[in-house]
């Protein structure tokens, strides 16, 4: 090797080492922020906070299956006490009576701070008379069973008021005293982890702990017949990460092995093979370094895209080795490098368009591919030649040469059929244009179908409604958030009365604002005054004031009791209800008030306009979460259309500037446009559900396919393409098709969509470029 060679090698090694150091210190993530908007609106921010940090993101649903009802109930109790003792879990509920009693005791003890019916009027003679009469009426009904044991303590029925406000219909069924599915075949538990939903490691540990405790409980009780099922956002995150990790390794291995096999077959030299992989390794490393430096976090899916990058980045080395062997280095630089450079630039244009996307995953993919391709091309141009020394002669057998030239001549007969087919495809797509694109974000979800089914079933069993409609208030501190939630609640009360909605939840139900609590406490009269009013109030009622001494005593102690804070709720089982609705984020506090659609019509939508009108001026925001997600995806899709078009225009402008001839430009573009049309129509016909990554794939077909089209363009005015060039193109196209094609095997929808579009697209681009470009030869 020459001195220049050594120096280049040294510099390259240093750069690689620095890159490795950056990668070593990078944060890798497989969480859902890949899909969440980089610049969210206020409504979207609420969803993002909920998904990443909300109490709901920390919930895991457990189901115990098999055995008989008694065994399942025993397991449920055993598991509950085991998990509740561990610091990893904030709350473990199984519907056991102990939990129910704790909540009831809490409500009874603090009823005068919690009940919305507590006002000064309620403790006047008339108010007391009305409330006590109503309680006595209730005693005549089976519904009074709850009231009877506490009548002398709570003759105004505050406990009934509090419990009646709960959504009794949403309570899960129960068997043998613990929660069960509606059909009674599964015992159910609800677990809240301490680890945040966005902390995938913490979620993984918590899930492993649950499984271990379940196994231990099975062993100790001899309940081997029981099975544990588990679902929740944490499990989705853990499984997605495992899938992505597994796929990154698998896909890269498949792609690399296949490409190495092809290159070994062509080069018949391990040394040249190793040198060819140099730009690939450099590109992959550069991609991760760039993403890590710019975004701070590298998504697993981005790394998974590496298998496609391998196929694309190896092309430049192939051109170099196959073409320069015959021409010599200087000649190659003069004749072929400009074409390759133009190809690199079109690819860069395609990937760069993605950089502007508000969909963070897409922007990362763009940056990763762009830096990777650029680094691979630069390494090929500047590092490979001095390292490789004298250009190696790649053997090109006469048989292969003849086959390639023969194929090139024959491929022309494809021209007419391809044009006709593309026209038909174009017409077909035009007709189908409204049904082409999947309209929702779930198209991108990495959650497997089985996991999603299990989740839906457990959710239905537990009666946890999808909180589709939310009213959200934000405030700088907790007290203001609760006060605002109470104000919004009063507006919502009117909608409940009008039958617009069935009801709503609020964190202020179990944790009223301090102001409200203080006002309620101040409504309570002193003992002697209450005694006096009570005498008058029960005149004519079958309940004598003498029996109500416990009531007077309770009111007297409630007057002295401190106000409730969040900590007072610990151990009551109600903390979860408050925590899931009261969030402390970076921008202060927000309270969520989930709405229930009008009774008897769970499928009907809540009229957004009516709710918005009712809330006008209260500072509360009405959010339709499903609508928000759909809108979010719609934004992504629209943006992807825009960006793809911009990328395409950039490529056209670049080609026009380089080719300086509209006719040559048309010659290059025509096969690419036909390839895109055919691929999309083909995918749609094959039943592939098209989403925004397919759209991005269309752009990449043009960006990647133009590399081949350009080689044929160079040839249009001059001599027929020589065998070495033809072979280099065939090999380069093969590796690209392998690289992108491997992605089609992925179960991660983002990667699958790109693979299934660009793989066949690149192949078609090559064939059609050959078919249409060789006519003047």
């Amino acid at each position, binding site marked *: 090797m020459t001195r220049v060679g050594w120096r280049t090698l040294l510099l390259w090694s240093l750069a690689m080492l620095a890159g490795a150091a950056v990668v070593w210190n990078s944060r890798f993530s497989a969480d859902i922020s890949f899909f969440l908007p980089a610049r969210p609106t206020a409504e979207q921010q609420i969803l993002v906070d909920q998904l990443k940090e909300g109490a709901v993101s920390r919930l895991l649903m457990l189901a115990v299956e098999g055995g008989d009802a008694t065994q399942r109930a025993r397991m449920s109790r055993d598991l509950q006490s085991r998990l509740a003792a561990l610091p990893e879990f904030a709350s473990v509920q199984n519907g056991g009576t102990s939990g129910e009693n704790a909540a009831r005791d809490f409500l009874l003890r603090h009823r005068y701070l919690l009940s919305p019916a507590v006002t000064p009027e309620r403790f006047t003679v008339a108010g007391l008379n009305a409330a006590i009469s109503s309680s006595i009426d209730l005693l*005549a*009904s089976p519904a009074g069973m709850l009231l009877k044991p506490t009548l002398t303590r709570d003759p105004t029925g505050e406990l009934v008021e509090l419990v009646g406000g709960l959504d*009794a219909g949403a309570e899960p069924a129960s068997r043998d005293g613990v929660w069960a599915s509606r059909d009674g075949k599964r015992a159910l538990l609800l677990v809240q982890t301490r680890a945040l939903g966005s902390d995938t490691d913490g979620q993984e540990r918590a899930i492993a702990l649950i499984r271990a405790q379940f196994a231990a409980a099975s062993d100790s009780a001899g309940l081997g017949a029981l099975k544990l099922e588990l679902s929740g956002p944490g499990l989705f995150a853990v499984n997605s990460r495992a899938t992505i990790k597994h796929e990154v390794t698998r896909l890269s291995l498949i792609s690399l092995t296949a490409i190495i096999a092809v290159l070994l077959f062509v080069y018949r030299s391990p040394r040249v093979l190793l040198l060819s992989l140099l730009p690939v390794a450099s590109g992959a490393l550069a991609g991760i370094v760039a993403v890590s430096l710019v975004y701070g976090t590298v998504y697993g899916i981005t790394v998974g895209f590496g298998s496609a990058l391998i196929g694309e980045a190896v092309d430049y080395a192939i051109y170099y080795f196959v073409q320069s062997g015959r021409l010599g280095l200087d000649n190659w630089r003069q004749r072929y490098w400009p074409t390759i450079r133009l190809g690199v630039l079109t690819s860069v244009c395609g990937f760069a368009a993605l950089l502007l996307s508000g969909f963070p995953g897409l922007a990362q993919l763009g940056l990763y591919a762009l830096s990777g391709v650029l680094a691979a091309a630069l390494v090929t141009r500047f590092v490979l030649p001095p390292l490789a020394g004298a250009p190696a002669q790649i053997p090109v057998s006469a048989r292969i040469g003849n086959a390639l030239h023969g194929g090139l001549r024959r491929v022309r007969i494809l021209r007419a059929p391809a044009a006709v087919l593309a026209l038909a495809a174009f017409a077909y797509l035009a007709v189908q244009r409204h049904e082409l694109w999947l309209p929702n974000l779930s198209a991108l979800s990495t959650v497997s179908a089985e996991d999603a089914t299990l989740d839906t079933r457990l959710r239905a069993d537990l009666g946890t409604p999808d909180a589709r409609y939310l009213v959200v208030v934000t405030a700088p501190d907790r007290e203001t958030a609760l006060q605002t939630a109470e104000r919004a609640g009063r507006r919502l009360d009117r909608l409940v009365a009008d039958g617009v909605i069935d009801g709503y939840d609020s964190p202020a139900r179990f944790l009223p604002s301090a102001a409200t609590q203080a006002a309620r406490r101040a409504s309570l009269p002193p003992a002697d005054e209450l005694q006096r009013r009570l005498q008058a109030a029960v005149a004519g009622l*079958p309940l004598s004031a003498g029996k109500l001494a416990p009531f007077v005593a309770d009111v007297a102690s409630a007057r002295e009791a401190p106000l409730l804070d969040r900590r007072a709720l610990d151990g009551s089982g109600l903390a979860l209800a408050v925590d899931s609705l009261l969030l402390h984020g970076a921008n202060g506090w927000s309270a969520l008030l989930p709405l229930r659609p009008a009774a008897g019509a769970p499928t009907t939508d809540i009229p957004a306009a009516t709710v918005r009108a009712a809330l006008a001026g209260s500072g509360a925001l009405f959010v339709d979460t499903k609508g928000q997600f759909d809108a979010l995806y719609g934004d992504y899709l629209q943006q992807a259309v825009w960006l793809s078009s911009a990328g395409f225009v950039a490529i056209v402008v670049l080609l026009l500037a380089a080719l300086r001839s509209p006719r040559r430009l048309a010659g290059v573009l025509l096969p690419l446009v036909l390839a895109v049309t055919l691929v999309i129509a083909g995918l749609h016909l094959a039943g592939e559900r098209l989403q925004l990554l397919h759209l991005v794939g269309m752009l990449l077909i043009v960006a990647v396919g133009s590399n081949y089209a350009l080689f044929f363009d160079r040839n249009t005015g001059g001599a027929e393409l020589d065998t070495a060039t033809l072979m280099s193109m065939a090999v380069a196209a093969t590796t690209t098709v392998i690289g992108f094609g491997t992605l089609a095997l992925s179960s991660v929808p983002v990667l699958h969509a790109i693979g299934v579009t660009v793989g066949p697209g690149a192949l078609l681009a090559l064939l059609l470029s050959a078919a249409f470009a060789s006519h003047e030869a």
Partner: protein
Amino acid sequence: MFRNLIAGVALASLAATAHAAFNIDQLMAGLAQHPGGRAKFVEKRTLAVLDRPLVATGEMTYTPPDRLEKRTLTPRPETLVLDRDQVSIERDKRTYTINLASRPEALAFVDSIRSTLAGNRAALEKNYTLQLAGSSEHWVLTLTPTAQRIATLLQRITVSGAGDQIRTIDYLLADGDRSELTIEPLDPR
């Protein structure tokens, strides 16, 4: 003539024996035949904590074998519907629904009236011991809970009636409070 008289006496005594031996199976068979229908009711609740009994009136409709609707009109309108294993109570525009399978105590309670109406002896004997007194024209069936969890709520239930028609149901609760339900059929057959 004499022989006829003998035969008559024998028959009469036979009838008397049959009458005396009016048993639970016969009662249940009769009740099971009841086609359902509407009735007025008066319910009197006597609670220790109150100075005088509470009286509620209304209508109830029984549709065999397992639907019972009890519509209280005074003192406050309320509708209670028992349909298979669901009880729903509608009161003040609010509906409370209880899944009975989730509440075995409530189920045993509800089963006492439902199984009596349907003449389902096996179901009754799951939770109660049965004792029958009187004739088919005026019978009194006493249900005493066997299971501890029911006995903590309920001392006994006394049902009385004539033929296949139930006239009164009297619940005596464990704490001494009681509820007496008097039923008057609305559409005589």
